[in-house]
Each structure stands twice: as C-alpha cells, then as structure tokens.
C-alpha cells in the first residue's frame, strides 16, 4: 500500500461528517456540543440564579416580567473522543479485509479530525495491541495514516477480551467504531455490552471478504483456519457450500439483531467493493456518515 488514501479521495471526504449521536465531555474545544454549559453564542436554556453565578448572564428582561432572577445558559462545543477499533487478527488478511479496514479507519479518522475531534486507533486481535492514542489536531492525521499503512495481521480474534480490556483502561466515553469481520469464536455480545455499559457509542462496521460470503472452491480440500493454524479435511460440494452460507448468514443476522436491539449502528460491507462506494453510500446509508 503506497498511499493509504489519495488526496483526491480526501478532498471528496470534506463534504462528509461523522455522525455522533450522544453528547460527550471533551477536553478541548471543538465542534460538538457537550453537556457542559459553555461560552458560545448559541443560547441553550435558562436556569435560576444562585449566589455565585455570573451576574453578567442574568436576563434582566425576564426579571422585569417575572420578578425572578434567571441566568442565561449558553452551549459549550468541545471535541469528542473517537475510538477506532481495528481488527488486525490474521483472519483479516483473507480477501484484503485488513487493507480495506485500514483505509476505512483512515477515512473515518480524517473525518473525525477534520471536525476537531480526538481520534485514537486501537488495533486488536486476541487483545488490544499498541495503536495510536487519541489526540486531535492535523498532526494526528499523519500519525494515524502512518500507523495504518504499516499495520500487519497477527493473532486470533477476541472481540470480548479486547473491548473488556479497553473499557478497563479508558474512562472517557466517546464514539467507538469497531471495524472487524466479527469472526470471533467467543462471540461479540459481551464486548459490545461493555462498551454500552460504559456509555460509549458503539458503531459496528462488519467487513467480510467475498471469499467469506461465497467461497468458489469445491472438491477435496484441506480448510485451514488462518488464525489458529488448524486444518479441517473436508470434501466441499454444493450442498456443503449452501450449508456454510446458511451458517454465516445466521451468524451475521444474530449480530445485526443484537446491534439493532441495543441501538448500535451496524453496517455490513464487503472488501470486494470499492472504498468510495463504501464511504459515500454504505456508511451514509448506515447513518455513520452524513
């Protein structure tokens, strides 16, 4: 991968924005309204005066009509921490999923940083591995891109373990975007539930390869699990392929149902599709971008 995302594509991204539903406390000023009252020009609400409040914000007109002192409260705009969880397990090397995931992560990071948010990359396999800590600013774009360009697959996937560890070390809630093929033997429910419990706003980008969806091989095969390095001798015929597709579809439906039930945005993507198609259509349709 020479260039993670070319300048033409980045320019096209300028018109997009990452959809963040919740309000999160930020550290620095940004463009997202936070729960904190702020000093911006946008009026938020009134609140009763209490001693110690700044008298400059007393609405004297209201006092004239109602005879009570009210303080005008303005909104505060801060940055939002965006956590991009990137699955770097060995299963992601099948069908170019990791490359596509890295490009997606890059695009999302760019959009987040463009809106003055803090972005951190959290690669994971069986556990979290060293990534890029959340920071804001233009320089973070280069950090993120440099990291994503050099990312290598390794290890097995464990979504639950990785997310459990994440919530233990990170206390600042924000948007948590999970880009993975979600093929984890121990499931995904616990991990996503942990994120929800700790008031993160999870987003699942389920990325599968065309080979995962519709295997083209048939006959006498030795199927090798690239993560566990385990082989399964099997004769694959049409019937076996149909049964496989059925099982995969059931798994995917289970994931989608879980997400829908917990108000988690979910998008299913194929690594065989072009990146622009994913970003400008699929992610928009999935309400991840607008």
């Amino acid at each position, binding site marked *: 991968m020479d260039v993670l995302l070319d300048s033409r594509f980045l320019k096209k991204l300028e018109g997009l924005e990452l959809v963040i539903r919740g309000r999160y406390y930020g550290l620095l000023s940004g463009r997202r309204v936070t729960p904190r009252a702020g000093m911006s020009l946008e009026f938020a609400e009134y609140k009763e005066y209490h001693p110690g409040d700044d008298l400059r914000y007393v609405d004297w007109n209201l006092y004239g009509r109602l005879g009570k002192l009210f303080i005008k409260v303005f909104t505060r705009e801060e940055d939002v921490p965006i956590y991009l969880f990137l699955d770097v397990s060995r299963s992601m090397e099948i069908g170019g999923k990791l490359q596509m995931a890295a490009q997606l992560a890059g695009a999302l990071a760019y959009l987040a940083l463009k809106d003055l948010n803090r972005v951190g990359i959290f690669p994971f396999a069986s556990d979290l591995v060293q990534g890029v800590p959340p920071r804001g600013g233009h320089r973070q774009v280069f950090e993120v891109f440099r990291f994503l360009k050099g990312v290598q697959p390794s290890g097995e996937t464990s979504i639950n373990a990785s997310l459990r560890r994440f919530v233990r070390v990170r206390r600042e809630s924000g948007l948590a975007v999970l880009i993975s093929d979600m093929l984890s*033997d121990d499931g995904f429910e616990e991990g996503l539930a942990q994120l929800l419990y700790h008031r993160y706003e999870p987003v699942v980008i389920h990325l599968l390869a065309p080979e995962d969806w519709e295997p083209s091989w048939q006959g006498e095969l*030795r199927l090798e699990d690239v993560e566990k390095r385990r082989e399964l001798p099997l004769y694959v015929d049409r019937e076996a392929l149909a049964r496989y597709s059925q099982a995969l579809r059931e798994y995917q439906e289970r994931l989608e149902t879980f997400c829908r039930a917990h108000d988690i945005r979910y998008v299913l993507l194929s690594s065989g599709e072009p990146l622009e198609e994913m970003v400008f259509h699929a992610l928009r349709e999935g309400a991840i971008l607008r």
Partner: protein
Amino acid sequence: MTFLSLWALGLFGLSAVVIVVYFLKRQAKRVPVSSLQFWEGMERRPRSALRLRWTQLLGLLLQLLALSALVLGVAEPVLETPASGVRTLALVLDGSASMQARLSSDPQGPMRYQRAVEKAREVLRENAGAQVALFEAAVPPRMLVPPTRDHGEIARALGRWEPGYSGNAPLAELRSLVEGPFPRPPERVVFLTDRPLPPESVPPGWELLPVTEGPANNLSITRFVVRPQPDGRGFALLLGVWNGSPEPQSVRVRILTGDDERVAEQALDLLPGSEETITASYAAPPPPQLIARLSLPEGFEDAWPGDDVRYAAPPAQRPWRVRREGEPSFYLERFLRFSGLAEILPPSPSGSPTDVEEGIPTPDITLYHGVPAAEPEAGRFLLVRSGMAPWVEIGESVEALDLPVRATQDHPLLAGLDPTSWRLVRVPQASLDPGGTVLLRAGDVPVLYLYEAPGVRIAYLGIDLRASNVGLSLDFPILLYRLLGWLAPLPGREAQLLVGEELPLAAPDLESLEVVRPDGRRCRPRPDRERDACALVDTPGFYALRHGAGGLPRIFAANPPSAESFEISTAAATRASSAPAPALAPASVATASGTGAVQPLWPWLLLAGLLLLGLEWLYAEGFLSVRALTRIARVHARTSKRRRGRERA
C-alpha cells in the same frame, strides 16, 4: 509401424502430464479460511465425493484412451488382409550357377534367374499382406531378407539379386534355413529353381516353380583335374567335355597356362547328351595354374558360357598313404594309383591296423577289402565289402542288377555324382550301426555308409568293383577322392575347390596368411569366423594363399560344380519345366505397390481419439450424467407429444 517419431513421443509425454494432473487434482487442496466455525460439523466425505472420484477416474481413462488412440495413429499401423489367405510366405530363389543360363538359344533372351525374379514378383503380388522372407538356395544357402511385411523391401532385394557360381544347396540345410526365421513353418514356400527335382525329394508343402523353358543348348567342360602319374613321371591332365544340346557337336579344347601359354589342344566330336573324357600327359611339373577353354562350333548359341572355361591347379602335397589289408584289389589299387591319390603300403605282418613296421611310414588310411577287419581302438578305415564289428557287419550278397541306386540325402560327398547310372550286380547285406549315415542304397541294401566316433572314421563301400560298372565311370575316382579326403583330411592337399566351399586355412602361421582372389583383391582371412568372406570361394578362378612375405603361394583352382552344367541342357530343361507347377493368380489381384490389401488405420485411430476427447469433455461438463440424459429424454418426449398433438389438431 513405429513409435519412434516426435509426435508419438510427444503424445506419450502428454499422457504422463495427464496422469500427473489427475493425481494433483486428486490431492486435497489447501484453502485458507477466516474461520472454521461455520464448517465444523459438516460430513467430511459425502456421497458426492465418491462420485467425483469416479468421475475423475473415468475422465482420466477417457483421456488416456484418447491419447493412446492418437499415439497408435501416429505410429501408422496398417490392417493387413492377405489376399490369398497366406500369412507367411518364403520365397526361395535358386542361386546356383545354372541360373545364369539363358532361357533359350536367343543370345539376347532373358536368363533363368531373371525369369525367377519375375515369377517371384508375381507370387509376391499374389500374397499381398503376407509376411515374406527371401532366401537364396546356393552353397551356402542364405537368407536375403528376413521375414517382413514390407513387400517393397523384398521387391528391391529381388531387383538387386543375381545368382553366383555355386552348386545346388542341400535341401535339408535349405529347409532348416527357410523354417528358422518364422515362429512357425511358413504357410507357403515357393522354390523357384531350374533343378529337375523329383517330387519325393521336395520338402513337404513346398511348391516348385520351374524357371526353365524352351531348348537350352549347352556345351561345357565338366571336369578338369591334374594328377601325378602313378609311376611318378610327369602328370596327367584329365578333362570332361559335355554336349547338352540335341545335336552332335564338334568342339576344340585348349589347355593354357595362367600366362596364356598353350599346353595342349584337342578336337572332339560329341554326341547329343554325351560326355567325353580327354587325357593329356604333361611330362614336366605342371605350372601352378592351368586353364581349359572350349571353342564352340560356328553359330552355336551357348546357354551359359560360364562353364566353357575351367581351372585346375596341380596337387601340391603328398598323396595319402593307404595300407591294404585282406584281399588285393586290382581295380581299387589301380584306381588309387592311377588317380595319383594314394601311395599303397604293404599289409602289416600281424594284420593289425595298429602295427607299424620299421622303415615304413605310418598309414593315413587302412583299406580292408573282402575280409572282416579287427576291432580297432582308433584309425581311419575304408571298408570295401568288408565288415568291422560292431559298426559294420556284412552278410550274404544279393543280386542288385535291377535295384536302383539312390542317394538317401544331399551330401557333399555325392555332389555332382549320378549314382542312378551305376550297375552294381551284387551287393552284400549289411547291418550297420545306426549312429552312422547311409548315403547310398541299392534298393534297401546300404551301399555307401559313413561312421564317425572319437578317434574312428569308417567309410563302408558295398560295391563289387570287378563286376559293376562303377569303376569305369567318371564318378568313381571323384567319389574315392572324396572318401579318402573325408577319412583323412590332409591339410593343404586339395587344390581343386568348388564355388561355395571355403579355402583350407590350416597353416602354421595363420596371422600372416593372405588370400589373393581371382580378381586380384587381397584379404586376410579370419579363421575364427564362420563363413569368412575372405576365405569363401564365390567366383571361379585361381585363389592364392600366401604365408608371410617370402613363402611360395599355394594355388587353388575354383570351378562351378559340374552338376550345374548338366542342368543346362535341352533335356534337363524339358524335365524341369514338366514338373508340376502351381497356378499363379493373375497379377491384377494386387495393386502396383504390392500392398493393395494393406489399409492404413491412422485416420480411424485419429477419429477415435478425437471422439473420445469429445466424449470426455461432454462427460466432464455433466452432459452425460444420468440426470442430464433423463432431462434430454424428457424434453424430447415432451416435444414429440406436442408435435403429435399439433398434427392431430
């Protein structure tokens, strides 16, 4: 048909590739997958796997079959259907000297061997498709072309072939040669010859095709020998001249040295079918090379001029030493002395063949005449009307005047002799050891018998020389000479050879031996090699054997057998041509190439190969599965039903 072509080898290689591909396909392929969780629990080897295995195997078989058909096609096999139903054919061409004779008195007319070749080609065409071998019946008989289906090769060999100067091949030897190269005796043997063979002497199943026709006038010198005079003073030149024409002829015979100097000349009148003998004395030691030439009468067309010249070389070695035991035989001893063959030693005082007196040389041969011989330990014995237990026991004599004398087999000792003209009068009954060979019989009574055991050689002759005409015939000295030669071969004695024989090479230093052949060519013989071409006498003339650089050469005179001259005569031609000949099929039954019944199979094999490949493709694509065929049948039935419905409507 050969597989040694680039295409065939390439296709063979392709079949190896097909097999390798098959085994690679059979090998389970390794496929990396993201997760095995959706595959686990599936049946590892469903029924379809077995079906696929069979499908692949059948596909491989079809591919290999197709390739085999193509390889076979490339090898250009042919389907041979013999037109006459004969699968193996042996063509035997008489290669004796008489085959060089012209068929008629026309000097431009064809020769016998040319007619033989012509007839052989007809037989070849008649048996198109048969496996054919070509033989030459000469001395020695030889195979010209081993069994082959390539009739072109036979035709080419026929075009090249010419007979030599040798005599007739012994039929027994010829038969074993002819039957040898075939796995089973050939179904048809055609012997093209000018020999007037009686039917009983022809091997069973052989067809004789005579190649003589019309009158064959021949004048020839049948014999020419030089013998020392019995008294040791000078030499005698003996000549036999024969008139094979139906008219009396006056001829002139000249005897010349090797340098064309005249030695003697004599005119001779010959009756039709008669042979006259000329004897000339030569006082001085004769030159080593003597040539007798026949001057033909004016206007006489000789069928074969090859026998108008004959060569002779005087014997160079000592005569045989023969010790006589028993009754003196005036005729026998006279014959031996007169012919210069033998030195007669007095009998031993004890009568034992092993006793040797002081001052008397050791005999080469012991002659018993009219007395039973003592049983010896070893030795060479000529028994004339004498027995020698346990090998020869003679009994009462029987009248044999009317009994025909016949040879029991072709034997070199009898070559050129005509025993049928002998009148034996009386012959003794003889009980002979079965380990020996009877060469002549008068009726059922053995007349000439040879026995050989380690250290012992016996020749038994049951002829009363005084009463019979044998002693007066020209055959007798020849027979006697050959008998002595067989009993006690004396190295270097023989100076007269027949074409087809080998030069006697026994010499002290064989390595320095050199042969100068009649055409002047020199060669070194290889005594360890059988039928060495250098030592083989194949043309008439003088052969010189040289030992080392300074030694005097030994000269041998080589001539065609006399019998060949006798075969070239009007009477012999009539006899031979009257022999029953099989009808030859017309030449039109076969094509000009001689392989009309041979069909190339490669187009069919190519077609079969391509069809098999197509079949394999259909099979691999599933068009030949039961389901597909059922579907096709169903569609066909439905269409037919609709059509019938429309027709009815």
